[in-house]
């Protein structure tokens, strides 16, 4: 009897312990991001830089992150996303009930992000240009200690203002470059966009700058 209990508990501990730790340290990804991230997960507390030109699928890439399986019980905050199409996010499978948007954080962007990181697992920033390099360093260390993923969206060109929303002056753990190509379903005046191809490529400081790419239909 005792031996049986011992055996079952030792089995159990071997089975349970690492899993518990993993869910505290990582966000499990699925879909396209799972294929390019090492081990299919992102470590909490890391900085992920989304980089691309206007209309290059950066927003879709952010939706891919927010809709991943590991985000199911986690809250995310979107800071500075003024014209976000939440309907598209919803269609991608993002659980909008756990996404809070602060569209116009004003001049205190860094402070807002710092406060949000205390409670949110993912804080996405759309206008990193208003964060100075010292603020950025501060935010990165806060992300590490709060175990919050900082997703920085850096668009090289904004179709509306014809300007970039600025460069991220801090460091990053991962960088995702995206582009959209091959629209199918429409031709000179007929049909509608049925499918697009989103190409994502990941660069990572941790795995020695190895770059993995993938193209997925969306």
């Amino acid at each position, binding site marked *: 009897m005792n031996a049986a209990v011992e055996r079952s508990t030792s089995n159990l501990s071997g089975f349970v312990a690492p899993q518990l730790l993993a869910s505290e340290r990582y966000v499990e990804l699925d879909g396209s991001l799972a294929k390019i991230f090492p081990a299919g997960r992102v470590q909490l507390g890391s900085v992920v830089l989304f980089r691309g030109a206007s209309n290059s699928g950066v927003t*879709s890439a952010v939706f891919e992150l927010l809709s991943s399986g590991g985000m199911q019980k986690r809250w995310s905050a979107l800071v500075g996303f003024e014209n976000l199409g*939440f309907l598209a996010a*919803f269609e991608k499978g993002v659980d909008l009930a756990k996404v809070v948007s602060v569209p116009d954080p004003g001049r205190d962007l860094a402070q807002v992000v710092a406060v949000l990181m205390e409670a949110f697992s993912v804080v996405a920033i759309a206008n990193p240009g208003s964060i100075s390099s010292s603020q950025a360093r501060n935010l990165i260390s806060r992300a590490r200690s709060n175990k919050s993923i900082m997703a920085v969206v850096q668009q090289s060109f904004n179709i*509306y203002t014809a300007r970039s929303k600025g460069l991220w002056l801090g460091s990053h753990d991962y960088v995702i470059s995206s582009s959209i190509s091959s629209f199918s379903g429409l031709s000179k005046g007929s049909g*509608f*966009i049925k499918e697009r191809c989103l190409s994502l490529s990941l660069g990572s400081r941790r795995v020695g700058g190895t770059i993995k790419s993938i193209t997925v239909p969306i």
Partner: protein
Amino acid sequence: MSKKISKAKLRRPLYSLFDPIEQQTAPRVLLVEFFYWPFISAKLEGIDPLAVVGDRGIVVHVSPRALMTGIKVGDKVRASLSVAPSLEVIPVDAVDPSGSFARIAIALEQFSPFLEIVDLGTCAINARGPSRYFGGEKELVSKVTQAMKDQIVEVFPVAGELRNNSADVFGRGSVFSFGVSMADGIFTARIAARDSLLVPPGESSSFLAPFPISELPDGDIADTLDRLGVRTLGEFASLDFYRVMERFGARGALLHRMAGGLDTSALETSEIKEDFSQKIELSESLEVASAVVFVCKARVEEMLEHLLEKGYFCQIMRVRLMSENGEESIRDWGVKDGFSVQLLLERIRWQLESWSFDPKLAPSAGIEVVELKPQRIVSALRRQLDLDGSERSSIAKVSQALSRVDAIVGERASVAKIKGSRTLKGSVEMVPWQLHLFDLDESRNKKAKEEPPWPGRLLGSSPAICFDSEVEVSILTKEGISVMVLADVILRGEPYWMEVKVSEKKARVLEWSSPWPMMEKWWDPEHSTKVVRIQIVTDDIGALLVKSRDGKWFIEGLYD
């Protein structure tokens, strides 16, 4: 004070801006409360025992005579004993062990079939129908009062004997004293029951206003409010809803609504989208209550687990018992914090026992069917005490952080909700986060998706960027002539160039879709305009959704 009351009333339309809880007014409630129920159920000698109910050395109920000696709820039992040495101390778990209250409450059932037992000693019915039927609210109250007295005498023969000896059995000093009240919502009705008052419809907020803040069912929040200088319910109700929410969270917001006479928390059956009810057919009819309960256990566990999995918990459960000969007993049981297996089984047993003890209504055969039907299920996130602590703490953290962000930014962070519409902007509603946390209903977003397609809405996936303001562009043919829309559906000229006006960014148009005609503001004939939308794919700035209105082109969204 009167100024504050009118303020509280004025604020009321504000609630109606938000759906859906705020749109409801509190239901009309008739409530019966036995003030000294623990002492009745403990069956002490006489109608005026000197007794208290003690829970781990603290007094939790005080009999009327003990009250006269100065003993209060919250005193130490030992200290009370030194005040009144002959004091009888009843342990808390000896109170109402067999659900004898259900046998009293049954008297209310003849007025409305859907009786709710709010608490041991307190029961209520929705009064709207019955008061019409029995010829007015006053008449109903007096009929109920008489019925309760009769029932007490019947269940507790002691009371009848004492009454025959011309003792004032239902008077103030007796343990049998009770109050009957009618008001909007349970919270108001409980306060009104102390003096058996009838609060006219819509006057709950002014009735509640002068009562001290300590009446709130949450001691911690009441304490804090008191220290902040908010002394009465009226003052609390006149505070700004959002500020209360920011400071005290969803719990505080609920109390705020209660203080304003808007306690909608009970006596209504919410719309239940999914059927969680369980019909348990016993393989053989059983007469012993504990046997029935034992047989039900597995199915009750299964049902509550299923509810939990879906993220719900049940506040009000309707229990229907049916005997072999077809007799029925139906009752609604309420538990504010949601039913656990034990609580529900206990209620089933109480109902069984009170039914079979009733000489008039007792079933003539054993029980064959037990049916459980949740009457009010609430999203588990809305519940104050959460299922797992982590969820609760994360919500608390989230609301704390967002309050601070609101203070920094100066406007409210918001959460998107999807609803059916054919315009991109119209299908998303931004809700202040406080209201969202208060009414976190996961089924809503799913519901929107299932709605039938709107005529004129876009096909395929939606653009990831939607412009609020209008971004004008010009769409030109190869020769530089502006492309126009004819007869709503035909383009004059083939798009070749596109130029964004503000940024002067120019791109080549590669492909474009067939046009979608749509009316904007079609409900308003003066302002309604026809727009035509097309998707275009460019070489340099990807795919866009543009619309044509009054001969001009605007970007509506980007397929980013």
